[in-house]
């Protein structure tokens, strides 16, 4: 399982938007989305973690389901003070149509965590 921190803008009428799964980071993995591996973090810890953008909720998805999607991979990318850090990524970087498809596919497999 991986967790994705969601901000206020990732919701409309209580439902998660596809925008929440935009591969926004341009990194060595190609285009990536930061998530947290549940081996090293809980959903509550994901929600509470200090970050540049305030998180208001958390979504979760099974790693096997994500790996079953086309175009994306999942990898553990631990940081010194952030062992749970992982990437959902596409490499080579996907074109704009593929990025749209990836957002919809991830939107299909992630569900909001209820605390």
């Amino acid at each position, binding site marked *: 399982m991986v967790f994705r921190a969601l*901000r*206020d*803008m990732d919701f*409309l009428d209580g439902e998660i*938007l*596809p*925008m929440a799964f*935009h591969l*926004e980071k341009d990194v060595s993995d190609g285009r990536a989305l930061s998530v947290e591996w549940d081996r090293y973090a809980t959903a509550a810890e994901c929600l509470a973690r200090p970050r*540049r*953008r305030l998180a208001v909720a958390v979504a979760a998805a099974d790693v096997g389901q994500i790996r079953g999607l*086309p175009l994306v991979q999942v990898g553990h990318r631990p940081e010194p003070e952030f062992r749970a850090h992982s990437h959902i990524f596409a490499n080579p970087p996907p074109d*704009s*149509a*593929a*990025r*749209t*498809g990836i*957002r*919809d*596919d991830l*939107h*299909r497999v992630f569900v909001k965590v209820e605390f």
Partner: protein
Amino acid sequence: MIDIACSDEDRDMGAWTQGADGHELLSAWERQDVDVVPVWGGARAVAKSFAGVVPAQASPLGEAIERSRSRILNAPLDADDVPYSEDTWIRAMTFLRRDLVAALRSASVVTDIPRILPGPEGSIDLHWVRPGYRLLVNIPPAIDLATFQYRRDNLAIRGEFDPERDSILPLIAT
């Protein structure tokens, strides 16, 4: 370019076309049997006529469009977010209405109103999630091509298109 005027009488006829789940989507004006698909001179011109052509209380499509305007243009942003522009919203709504009408005329499976949503980097998403299929259309700012993914079971079709010229919803039905 062809302008099609809409009278108050047209708007008040109360005759609507049904969507896939049985509810009514379009006004008499929107479903009128004409030889040409309405085309406007430009996005800005559409904006000026939008409120009059699709009155907020008269059609579910008009309501959805009207409701999306303030939600998207007034969406809360973080400091590094790209703001949503009215031009992008107009571009997306012009495409949506033109193509949804075209889809209804061709008996497309895509005949329901999508969720009209803020997208990444100042873009706008049109999202259909229905039993049997999903469709995400992304309309970017400025002149960039729009993109879509249509998924039915294990079949996925994705691509780019010009939202000012191209039509995708009727094609998806075939």
